[in-house]
């Protein structure tokens, strides 16, 4: 193996598993350390820098960071990253003065954002401070998109939503609510806008066309039903409710049903549990509320008697799962009718663009998704950008935010006649954290405490109203303990081969046996020859240059390093050092600064 090129910005970024997994690359260890120091406002602002909705995402993020968290590999449970984000949001001071502000004079460029959901708001957040004139068109009479219509209030209080959305709108966006764009052609015909961004989500719930579907009223599409509940158009539901599908929308549907009067709610899954789409924690929260989840039942028909829905017929399934964990098509082993008053279909959602004409140069693929460049977010027609669910189908809020940041860069470059592909690269900066002979700037000791449990409102209390937020947020004591679980993966073990005297001190002290000095070899061979076998190929080997005395190499398996600093502390020559890696992710403001300096140089 060649020695590792640590100057590549991705190398140390990948070591910070949470930040690497986050679509918006939130500096997770950075804000967790700020929380540990009680600097909640600073932690909030560091969060906001990348993910712009810390209060919202601290409650409802899909948290790709947590399955990636190294702590989950070292022990069982990852750090409660998401809920720590909420701690920062809950305890912050007034941040109005710290927010970016739009300049007094705009730059004259007009941008239309269609949809007032998370994707459009991210674009607005990045472009308003640069002087762009932003108009947001929203079909509903309120902002937030699916964050407001599809996420129940008992998980995400409207107050939190309003606050964080208004931080952006109040920078000076022209918000046009109850203004549905019926035709893209018409919008473009006026030539009023320099660029258009589409952030209209994936608004069409999937249908289940089985016998009886249209013969009774009490069958609903999940996301439409949730929207009706959010706007209080629906205030009750029957006693017995069946939810078809077992994704996160299904979890919101079943828990909402309980709050609208249902007493017996069953979530019907076609496959076994390990194939559920819902996040583990959403399943846990639903089951805590005595939701019954029934596996291996495939819906066959709606049972209607005298024009009234009385139940649903299911095929009972049996599956074979091979050793690679793949499931077969299954076979039917029986049928069963489960009585119910209402059925809610939560089996997925699709993009829908009936308002975009197909003859205006915007290409669509076979699934009716627009053809969008994954880097620039621009579609096949210049000047029109997509982001969030509307771009590549349903993902989640944090992906929409990431798309928004990238689209904002593209829109800026497009409006300035710059190449959209030539974007500022990411960078990495390393700073030693050594404070003294045995002192580091961070809490390097490994704290064996297990993951703190989120306190919930009592089961009897929480159903009294639909807007009682179930999660109470971590107490101060819990937050103090949970932050110490973070392994500070951004504080990197950095090795300088020419200083090493090969004394073995680092290898002897490493608690997780991740270091080895050995003859170099190809990667597969090397992975087998290490102090402890390096079986997780998703994690890199850090291979040094040849060591001065023997020509061997120092190899570090990044997989399970707990960043305890003992290697650096026991190193007599400072060949190992603990250095904080700061990953710089370029935003529209950075591109704008470059544009400005280019223009200034040109005179």
């Amino acid at each position, binding site marked *: 193996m060649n020695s590792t090129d640590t100057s590549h910005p991705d190398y140390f970024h990948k070591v910070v598993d949470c930040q690497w997994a986050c679509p918006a690359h939130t500096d997770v260890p950075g804000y967790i350390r700020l929380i540990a120091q009680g600097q909640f406002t600073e932690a909030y602002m560091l969060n906001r820098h990348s993910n712009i909705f810390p209060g919202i995402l601290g409650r409802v993020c899909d948290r790709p960071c947590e399955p990636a968290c190294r702590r989950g590999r070292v022990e069982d449970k990852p750090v409660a990253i998401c809920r720590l984000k909420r701690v920062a949001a809950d305890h912050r001071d007034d941040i109005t003065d710290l927010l970016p502000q739009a300049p007094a004079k705009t730059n004259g460029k007009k941008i239309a954002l269609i949809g007032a959901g998370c994707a459009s708001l991210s674009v607005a957040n990045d472009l308003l401070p640069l002087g762009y004139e932003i108009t947001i068109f929203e079909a509903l009479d309120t902002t937030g998109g699916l964050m407001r219509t599809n996420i129940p209030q008992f998980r995400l209080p409207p107050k939190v939503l309003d606050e964080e959305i208004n931080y952006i709108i109040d920078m000076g966006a022209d918000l046009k609510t109850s203004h549905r764009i019926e035709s893209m052609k018409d919008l473009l015909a006026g030539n009023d806008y320099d660029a258009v961004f589409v952030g209209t989500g994936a608004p069409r719930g999937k249908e289940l066309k089985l016998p009886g579907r249209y013969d009774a009223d009490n069958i609903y599409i999940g996301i439409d039903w949730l929207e009706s509940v959010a706007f209080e158009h629906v205030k009750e539901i029957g006693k017995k409710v069946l939810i078809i599908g077992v994704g996160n929308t299904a979890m919101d549907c079943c828990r909402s049903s309980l709050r609208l009067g249902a007493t017996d709610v069953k979530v019907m899954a076609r496959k076994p549990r390990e194939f559920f789409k819902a996040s583990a924690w959403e399943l846990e929260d639903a089951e805590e509320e005595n939701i019954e989840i029934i596996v291996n039942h495939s819906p066959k028909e709606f049972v209607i008697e005298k024009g009234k829905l009385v139940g649903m017929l299911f095929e009972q399934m049996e599956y074979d799962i091979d050793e690679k964990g793949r499931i077969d098509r299954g076979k039917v082993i029986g049928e069963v009718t489960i009585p119910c008053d209402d059925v809610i279909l939560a089996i997925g959602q699709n993009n829908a663009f009936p308002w975009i004409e197909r003859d205006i140069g915007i290409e669509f693929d076979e699934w009716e998704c627009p053809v969008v460049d994954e880097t620039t977010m621009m579609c096949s027609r210049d000047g029109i950008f997509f982001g969030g669910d509307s771009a590549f189908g349903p993902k989640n809020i944090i992906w929409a935010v990431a798309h928004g940041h990238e689209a904002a860069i593209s829109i800026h470059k497009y409006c300035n006649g710059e190449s959209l592909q030539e974007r500022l690269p990411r960078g990495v900066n390393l700073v030693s954290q050594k404070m003294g002979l045995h002192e580091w700037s961070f809490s390097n000791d490994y704290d064996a405490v297990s993951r703190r449990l989120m306190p919930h409102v009592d089961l009897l209390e929480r159903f009294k109203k639909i807007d009682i937020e179930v999660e109470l947020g971590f107490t101060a004591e819990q937050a103090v303990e949970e932050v110490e679980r973070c392994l500070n993966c951004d504080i990197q073990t950095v090795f300088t081969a020419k200083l090493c*005297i090969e004394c073995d001190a680092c290898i002897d002290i490493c608690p997780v046996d991740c270091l080895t000095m050995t003859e170099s070899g190809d990667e597969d061979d090397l992975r087998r020859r290490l102090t402890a076998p390096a079986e997780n190929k998703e994690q890199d080997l850090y291979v040094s240059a040849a060591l001065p005395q023997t020509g061997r190499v120092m190899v570090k398996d990044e997989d399970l390093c707990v960043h305890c600093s003992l290697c650096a502390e026991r190193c007599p020559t400072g060949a190992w050092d603990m250095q904080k890696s700061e990953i710089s992710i370029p935003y529209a403001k950075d591109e704008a600064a470059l544009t400005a300096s280019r223009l200034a140089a040109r005179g």
Partner: protein
Amino acid sequence: MSYIAKPKVSHPSVPRNELGLFKRDYEGVVSTLCAGCGHDSVTAAIIQAVFELGIEPHKLCKMSGIGCSSKTPAYFLSQSHGFNSVHGRMPSVTTGANAANSDLTYIGVSGDGDSLSIGMGQFAHVIRRNLDMCYIMENNGVYGLTKGQYSATADVGTTAKKGPANKQMPIDPVSIAIGLGATYIARGFSGAKEQLVPLIKGAIMHKGFALLDVISPCVTFNDHEGSTKSYAHTREHFHQVINADFVPPSEEIVAAYEEGNTMPIRLHDGSKIVFRRVDKDYDPTSRAAAFTFLRDSVNAGEIITGLLYIDEETGDMHDLSGSIETPLSKIPYEELNPGAEELANLMDRYR
């Protein structure tokens, strides 16, 4: 030294030994020696060897005198017995312990100062008695604990960090041990664990006195260019004459060894040491040959390493003194001490 203890977390794939223990179960407290000290590596090698041998921690006794080396028993085998004795007197305390309880495994850790200056007499006599113990001499050529004065193993011409070069002749512990008739003599290097761990295992399982002279650089006072006991110098002049693999009784000798060049030697417990000649002229069972070879190598400035001499025939202290099989500590007091009357009878026999 470190302010934090080694975290209680480990790689999920770490193996257990035949007792079901992890290597971490054989550790001690975190070292307070200088970072990079060779002694810490020797400590790690002892932990590895004892873990692999599957010795029950409470069946082992770690003995030491005074010096940096003699601090190290605190850093391994927290659950074993131990005795940190007077400077240079570890051999006699170990002799007493072994006389009373021959059931335990004895590991003595000493240094070049503890063994070859203040403890030279004790060192010579423990060899003469062929006490069943593993005697590890962590040899760095300086008195590290008192700021790096030359020790008795400092080579002629070696320099300290400051001051004149050493002019006095060094004492070579290996040559002394061969001369005195030790039955297991090896030399290793703290920076070469793949060689050191089998040497320690052999030394522990050898019945009789086993000397392990380990070049263990003093990173603070003797790891510079004028030193002949630095990491760099030792690596440059390191010459392994014989490779010794330790094979436990339960394992067969695998046939990967080249015919004619290998030589298995059976130890008392049924385990074997398989020698593989690296230098074809070397015979580890000939005291005279070993002595000559060592002499020549010293003149050539080479650091000869490996298991240099072994004799499995000579009995240990208990064999030589004809003591009974049962450890004295296991014999009831009444039996061990028959009383004043019996003593009087005994004394009468000599009148």
